[in-house]
C-alpha cells in the first residue's frame, strides 16, 4: 500500500512556510527558460499561477474551455476576499484567520496549509491593489472592509458585489501581459481530456480543440490543474454550466488520490428550484443574511396554505413566524456558517414547514430591516440583489405588502440551499503536488485548505494564494532536478497512444446510439445525488445511491444518444464526456460519505447527530483525510487510504455557534 507523505515542514506552525522557503530548491533564471509548464484552467488559481510562473521566466501553456480566460467561474464570486490585515483594528491576526478557518472547516483541514494560507492572505491584497483592482475604499482613501459569516472581525475586502470578477480580471490582466511578452501561450476553447505519463511522471496533456473537434498533444515538464470543483455532479448547482470535473477525474484515473469527496458545500441562500426544466441555480449573496431574517411559519396549517398558494408570507404576523436560526443559535443567529444554516432549512422543510408550492423553500425577510433603517438604506445595501431576485421570480422584496396590527410587512424572498462549492478535491501535499509526480492541483480543484466546510470569502483567498504565492515557489522544488531533462516530443509513443485512447473513448460515446440525451441522464444523476447524497445522508440512502449509480452508468453506456458527428464542434459530445466523469464522481462522493461514519461540516450523516440535531464528529476514528485511489477501471471500487491529521497549534473542539 502506498504511504501518504504530506511533506509538512518541520518547526512551529508559524515558521513552517518561512523555513520551507529558506530551504527549498530553486531554479536559476537561465534554466527557467528551458522549462515548460502546462496550466489547465484560467480561474483565480490558474490565471494567477500561469502569469506568475511566466513572470518568473518559465514557459507556460495555458488552457481554458471558454472563449476567453476571463470567463472562468471565479468571476461569479460576489462577496469578497478575506485577509488578516487588521486594518480595522478589531484584533485580527494571521493566527485568528487561521483559527477561524480551521474551526469553520470543522477541524478537518490540514493545519500547516491553512496557516500558510492565512500568512499569505495579506500579500494577496497588496498584489491585487498594485494590479489596479478597484477595491471599495473609505473617504480617507484607505481600503474598506465588511464582515462575513463565521468570523467576529471585519476582514473581508470587496469590490461592490463583484469581487470575484475584479480579482479575476486582475489576474487576467497579468496573464495578458505575459501572453503579449510571449511567455504564456493561451489556448482558448480547448479542453483537457487526458494527462500523458512518461516514466511515471506527468509530462503533458491531450487537449481537444472544441472548435475543430480535433485532439492535440502538448508536452511540458510539469502539469498544473486549476480546473475547479465538481458541484455540477448534482446537475443543479450555482456552478457555471461548463464547470466539470473531467480533468480531476482524468488525474484520478492516472493515480492521483481524490481526497474527501463527500465534503460538498450547500449554500443556504439560493433561489429555489422553479421547475424541472431549470438548468442552473442562482445564488443570492450571503451578505443578505446581515439584515435579512430567515423564517418559516410556526403553525403547520399556515405552511400548508402557503404551499397551496392561498396566502402569502406577508399575511403571517410576527407572532406566528418561527425565526428558527435565531431560536436555535442565539449567538450567531442568521449569521451561522453555511452548512449549519442549510441543514436548519432542510430540517424545517422536512417537517413540512416549507413555504412554496414544492415545500422546498424558506423565507428571507427584510421587513424588520426596512422598518428599522428605511427602504432607502436597505436598497442601497442590497438593491442590485433585490432587482436580480425580482427579474427571476417576479417578486420585489423591497415592496410593501400589508400592515397587520400596526406592523408593516414587506414581500419576503424565498430561498433554499443549493450545491455551491466542493471542499474535497485532488489530494495534494504541502507543495500542492498530487500523488502523481509532476502533477499539481490548485484552487478548488485540490482539497487542502477548507476542511469539511469553507467560510465565506475564503475561496478567492485560497485560489489566489495557491496561484500567486504558493505554487510558483513549491513547483521549483520539483523542477530543480528537471533542468537537464530535454523537452519532450509530443509525437513520441506515449503521446500518440494517449491521443488514440482519447479518440477511442470518443468513438465509444458516439457509437452507443441509444435514445437518451446527455441532459436527461445528467438530470437523473443529479436527482440521485441530491436525494440520497445531499444535505442529509444515511447509510441506507448512500447504499441506495451506489446501487442506482451503477444502474445509471449502465444506462449511460447503453442508451446514450449523441447527435451529429465527432468532426468539428459537437457540444453534446463534450457534455457526454463530462457526464461520464460526473458518474464516477458521484460514486466517489457516495463512497466517501458512506465510509465517514460521522457528521462534520458539509457532510451530515443523520445517524450521527446530537439530541439538538447538531453535527456529531468522531475525532477518534475519522480524524483523517480520506484519499481514494483509483483501481483498474471505473467499475471497480476504489481503495481508501488515510492521511492522519495532526493538530499542533489548535485544540480540537466541538464547533459552537450557540453561545
Amino acid at each position: 500500500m502506498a504511504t501518504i507523505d504530506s511533506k509538512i515542514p518541520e518547526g512551529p506552525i508559524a515558521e513552517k512556510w518561512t523555513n520551507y522557503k529558506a530551504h527549498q530548491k530553486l531554479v536559476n533564471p537561465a534554466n527557467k527558460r528551458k522549462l515548460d509548464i502546462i496550466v489547465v484552467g484560467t480561474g483565480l488559481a490558474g490565471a494567477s499561477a500561469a502569469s506568475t510562473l511566466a513572470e518568473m521566466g518559465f514557459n507556460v501553456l495555458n488552457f481554458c474551455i471558454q472563449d476567453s480566460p476571463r470567463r472562468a467561474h471565479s468571476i461569479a464570486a460576489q462577496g469578497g476576499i478575506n485577509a488578516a490585515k487588521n486594518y480595522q483594528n478589531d484584533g485580527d491576526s494571521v493566527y485568528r484567520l487561521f483559527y477561524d478557518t480551521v474551526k469553520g472547516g470543522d477541524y478537518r483541514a490540514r493545519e500547516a496549509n491553512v496557516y500558510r494560507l492565512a500568512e499569505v492572505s495579506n500579500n494577496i491584497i497588496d498584489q491585487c491593489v498594485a494590479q489596479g483592482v478597484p477595491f471599495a475604499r473609505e473617504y480617507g482613501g484607505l481600503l474598506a472592509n465588511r464582515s462575513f459569516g463565521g468570523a467576529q472581525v471585519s476582514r473581508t475586502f470587496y469590490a461592490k458585489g463583484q469581487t470575484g470578477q475584479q480579482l479575476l480580471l486582475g489576474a487576467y490582466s497579468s496573464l495578458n501581459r505575459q501572453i503579449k511578452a510571449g511567455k504564456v501561450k493561451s489556448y482558448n476553447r480547448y479542453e483537457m481530456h487526458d494527462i500523458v505519463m512518461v516514466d511515471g511522471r506527468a509530462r503533458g496533456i491531450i487537449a481537444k480543440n472544441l472548435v475543430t473537434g480535433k485532439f492535440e498533444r502538448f508536452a511540458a515538464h510539469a502539469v498544473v490543474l486549476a480546473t475547479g470543483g465538481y458541484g455540477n455532479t448534482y446537475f443543479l448547482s450555482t456552478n457555471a454550466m461548463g464547470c466539470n470535473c473531467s480533468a480531476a477525474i482524468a488525474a484520478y484515473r492516472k493515480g492521483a488520490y481524490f481526497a474527501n469527496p463527500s465534503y460538498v458545500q450547500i449554500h443556504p441562500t439560493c433561489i429555489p428550484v422553479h421547475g424541472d426544466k431549470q438548468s442552473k441555480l442562482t445564488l443570492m449573496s450571503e451578505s443578505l443574511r446581515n439584515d435579512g431574517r430567515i423564517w418559516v411559519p410556526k403553525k403547520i396549517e399556515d405552511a400548508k396554505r402557503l404551499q397551496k398558494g392561498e396566502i402569502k408570507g406577508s399575511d403571517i404576523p410576527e407572532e406566528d413566524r418561527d425565526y428558527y436560526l435565531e431560536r436555535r443559535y442565539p449567538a450567531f443567529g442568521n449569521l451561522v456558517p453555511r452548512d449549519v444554516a442549510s441543514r436548519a432549512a432542510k430540517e424545517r422543510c422536512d417537517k413540512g414547514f416549507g413555504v412554496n408550492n414544492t415545500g422546498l423553500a424558506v423565507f428571507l425577510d427584510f421587513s424588520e430591516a426596512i422598518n428599522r433603517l428605511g427602504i432607502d438604506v436597505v436598497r442601497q445595501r442590497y438593491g442590485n440583489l433585490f432587482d436580480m431576485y425580482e427579474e427571476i421570480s417576479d417578486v420585489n422584496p423591497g415592496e410593501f405588502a400589508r400592515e397587520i396590527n400596526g406592523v408593516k410587512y414587506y414581500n419576503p424572498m424565498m430561498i433554499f440551499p443549493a450545491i455551491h462549492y466542493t471542499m474535497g478535491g485532488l489530494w495534494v501535499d504541502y507543495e500542492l503536488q498530487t500523488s502523481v509526480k509532476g502533477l499539481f492541483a490548485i484552487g478548488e480543484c485540490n482539497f487542502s485548505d477548507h476542511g469539511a466546510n469553507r467560510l465565506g470569502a475564503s475561496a478567492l483567498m485560497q485560489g489566489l494564494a495557491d496561484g500567486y504565492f504558493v505554487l510558483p515557489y513549491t513547483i521549483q522544488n520539483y523542477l530543480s532536478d528537471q533542468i537537464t531533462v530535454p523537452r519532450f516530443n509530443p509525437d513520441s509513443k506515449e503521446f500518440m497512444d494517449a491521443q488514440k485512447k482519447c479518440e477511442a473513448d470518443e468513438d465509444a460515446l458516439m457509437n452507443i446510439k441509444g435514445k437518451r440525451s446527455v441532459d436527461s441522464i445528467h438530470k437523473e444523476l443529479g436527482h440521485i445525488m441530491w436525494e440520497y447524497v445531499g444535505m442529509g445522508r444515511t447509510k441506507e440512502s448512500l447504499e441506495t445511491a451506489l446501487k442506482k449509480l451503477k444502474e445509471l452508468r449502465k444506462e449511460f453506456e447503453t442508451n446514450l444518444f449523441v447527435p451529429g458527428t465527432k468532426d468539428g464542434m459537437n457540444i453534446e459530445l463534450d457534455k457526454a464526456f463530462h457526464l461520464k466523469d460526473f458518474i464516477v464522481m458521484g460514486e466517489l462522493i457516495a463512497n466517501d460519505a458512506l465510509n465517514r461514519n460521522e457528521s462534520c461540516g458539509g457532510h451530515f450523516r443523520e445517524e450521527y447527530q446530537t439530541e439538538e440535531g447538531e453535527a456529531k464528529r468522531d475525532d477518534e476514528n475519522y480524524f483523517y483525510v480520506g484519499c481514494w485511489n483509483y483501481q483498474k477501471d471505473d467499475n471497480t471500487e476504489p481503495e481508501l487510504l488515510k492521511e492522519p491529521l495532526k493538530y499542533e497549534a489548535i485544540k480540537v473542539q466541538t464547533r459552537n455557534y450557540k453561545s
Partner: protein
Amino acid sequence: MATDNIMKVNLKVWRQAGPKEKGGFVTYENVETTPDTSFLETLDILNESLIEKGQEPIVFDHDCREGICGMCSLYINGHPHGPATGATTCQLYMRRFKDGQTITVEPWRSAAFPVIKDLMVNRNAFDQIQQAGGYVSFNCGGAQDANAIPISKVDADEAMDSATCIGCGACVAACKNGSAMLFVSAKVSQFALLPQGRVEAAKRVKAMVAKMDELGFGNCTNTRACEAECPKRVSISNIARLNREFICAKLKD
C-alpha cells in the same frame, strides 16, 4: 409544477454550420415554456426536443448564467441580450415575451466577431486588445502595503464602474459602426483613474487603440447605442476619457 401557466413561443433562430458555411433562419414553432423559465432554458428545452428528433442542437455561448461571465451573447428581437435593459441574455426571463410571440434570435453581427457556429461568435479580438496594454506592468511579489497608496473613494468608485465591463461584446453588436470604443474605454478608464495605472497610461492607451484599429473595429460616432444596450450600464463618459487620454498621449509624443 410548471403546468399551471405554460406559454408557447416561436423561435426564429439563425443556424449556420460553420464559419464559412452559408447560414439562414430556421423557425421552431410552439416551443413550450413558462414565464418563470429563463430565455436560455427555453433554448435548452428546444435543444432537448431537437436531440430527441436526432437533430443537432443549436450552439450558443453561455456559462455562468448569473450575468457576470460575459459568455452569453445573442441578438434577440432587435436588441443585444434581448429587450430587458441592464441585463444579460442569461438573466432574461420568458415573462418578458407574450404567449404566441415570434422571437428572432441572431448572433452578434460584426466583422471582428465572425460566426463560429449557429449563434456562437469568435470574440478573440477583445482578448487581443487587452493583451496590447490592458494591465499594469508589475511582477507578483514586489507590491507595497495595500494602504500605502490612498485613492479617493470617488475615483475608486468610478474606476469600479468602468471595471464592471464583462467583455460580452454587446457594445460592438449594438453599434451600427461595429465600434469597440466602449469596451476599450472601460479598461483604459479604470487604469487612468487609479494611480497604479497612471504610470504607463500614455503607452497603454496608444497601444490599445492601435490594436483596436488594426483588428477592424469601426469608428465611434457617438450614437450611444452601446451605452443603452450595455448589460452593465457602462457609460460613454468613458469614451470621452479615452479620447482625452489618447489625444494627450499623442500630444506628448
